[in-house]
């Protein structure tokens, strides 16, 4: 449904998206996971036709987003990161307007407006001006506007940013329900937990590049089921490196004078051994964090930094 090949987008000398390629299929949720500024929104912008790429191609149901933009755009629904609604209109009027922008009219538009209002739980407050809505309600309405025309491809750019936990659960349920109807969903997030809970397959992006890609299972396998041990304190780097190299099945992911990140199989069981080795160097360990293998540990393994940095 979506084919992205060697996508490049620059802002002046800054390369925001650098050779990104992936495919997303119908009825599945494809995630773009990465920290803020990784190039996720720019990638979505290029796929949606908002931004013109400097190189590469984007095809939506076989239609090139640059060469056949109108055909491609008709198949797309976009839910932007920032709420994009008309404050002077009611929820019903907002949905009807965006539905009209995608060519819906008459009884079809009314039917779909009623359906999505019910779907996002705003039917009973549909006639109120949205000025009176909470942030979570506006988020849900933003989502409704993106799906009113029953798009075959739905682009969601961090749709849960800044929402309360209950609204987040609602939105994630809505995303799953869209995929179940056969829609191809592209979902960007910097919340690792969301990506793990929601996505069938995923591309991890950093610095405008895809640094890992695959199904959730494939990506978890890449962590080699190793725990991640992070230590904060004061460390004698060369001395510690030598000590850790003497230990079996341990990989130093990152080492600085104040922080060390280590990947180790059965990390919990080997904690005394590792801490003992480091302690022998005279290190001052102030904080120790042990985490199970997950996308976060994969991201740290690949980039040497946390997803939230």
């Amino acid at each position, binding site marked *: 449904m979506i084919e992205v090949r060697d996508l490049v987008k620059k802002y002046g000398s800054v390369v925001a998206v650098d050779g990104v390629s992936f495919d997303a299929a119908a009825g599945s949720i494809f995630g773009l996971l990465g920290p803020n500024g990784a190039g996720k929104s720019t990638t979505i912008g290029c796929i949606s036709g908002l931004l013109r790429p400097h190189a590469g191609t984007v095809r939506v149901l076989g239609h090139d987003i640059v060469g056949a933009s109108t055909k491609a755009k008709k198949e797309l629904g976009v839910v*932007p990161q*920032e709420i994009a609604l008309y404050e002077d209109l009611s929820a019903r009027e907002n949905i009807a*307007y965006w539905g009209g922008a995608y060519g819906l009219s008459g009884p079809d538009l009314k039917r779909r407006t009623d359906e999505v209002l019910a779907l996002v739980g705003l039917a009973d407050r549909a006639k109120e001006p949205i000025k009176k809505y909470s942030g979570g309600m506006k988020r849900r309405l933003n989502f409704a506007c993106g799906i009113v025309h029953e798009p075959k491809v739905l682009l969601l750019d961090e749709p849960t940013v800044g929402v309360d936990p209950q609204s987040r659960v609602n939105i994630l349920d809505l995303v799953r329900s869209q995929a179940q109807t056969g829609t191809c969903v592209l979902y960007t997030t910097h919340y690792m937990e969301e990506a793990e809970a929601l996505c069938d397959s995923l591309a991890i992006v950093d610095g405008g590049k895809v640094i890992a890609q695959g199904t959730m299972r494939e990506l978890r396998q890449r962590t080699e089921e190793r725990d991640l041990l992070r230590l904060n304190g004061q460390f004698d780097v060369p001395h510690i490196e030598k000590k850790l190299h003497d230990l079996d099945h341990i990989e130093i992911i990152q080492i600085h004078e104040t922080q060390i990140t280590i990947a180790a199989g059965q990390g919990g069981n080997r904690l005394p051994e590792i801490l003992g080795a480091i302690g022998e160097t005279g290190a001052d360990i102030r904080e120790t964090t042990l985490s199970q293998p997950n996308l976060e540990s994969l991201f740290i393994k690949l980039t040497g930094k946390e997803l939230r940095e």
Partner: protein
Amino acid sequence: MRSVWLIFQREFQAYWTSPVAYVVLAMFLILSGFFFFGEFSRFVDFSQRGGSGVDVNQMLIRPYFYTVSVMILFLLPLVTMRLFAEERRQGTLEVLLTTPATEFSLVLGKFFAALGLFAVMMLGSVVHIGLLFIFGSPDLAPVLTGFLGLFLTGAVYIAIGVLLSSLTQNQVVAAAISFSLFLALWLFYWIGGLTSGSLSKVLLYTSLAGHFENFGRGVLSSSDFVFYLSWIVAGLFGATQVVQSTRWKA
């Protein structure tokens, strides 16, 4: 065409759900009524004193049109300032650009919506001039050409206003720049009169006031039409380019 209609409806409705349409209409009606009364009183006074060559078209209608054409120079920036600036501020422009609607259809829809509100404003002037037909018999042709000139002048201001609104997300900035430019286009006529040579010719040709005078006199000239249409096309084309450039900058 569908999206032009959709945008037109949305924008025209937005004027009436905010104070903009009411404030602009009230100001227009009060000011134009005041000036009409002033011109009318002067005309009646002159007639009663037995002035020779009393001509209602020349003494009342033409100055009235001229005054209204200056008034709209102040009022139309208030009509155009929100068109794109508000979309940018709300973040809806970027989403609109992901729909199948083209940039030109967005520009055209907004242009027609502002033109629609301007047409409603003009109804006030139709009433004023209509009163003269009830109590007298002015020449119809200069009245019709006067209205046409007024409408085209308004369309030029609106097209330029749409362009300037597309350049910023601050409505006040859009209105201030629009007003300054409209005023400059009007004042070129006087500045052109004070200068000489090719500069004078350029200023006189570029000025809206000079071309409007022909319409006020009942003269329909193709060069005046071309002049007005050129400004309108330039404004709308420029606005389309600015909106398109969002795709590179957003």
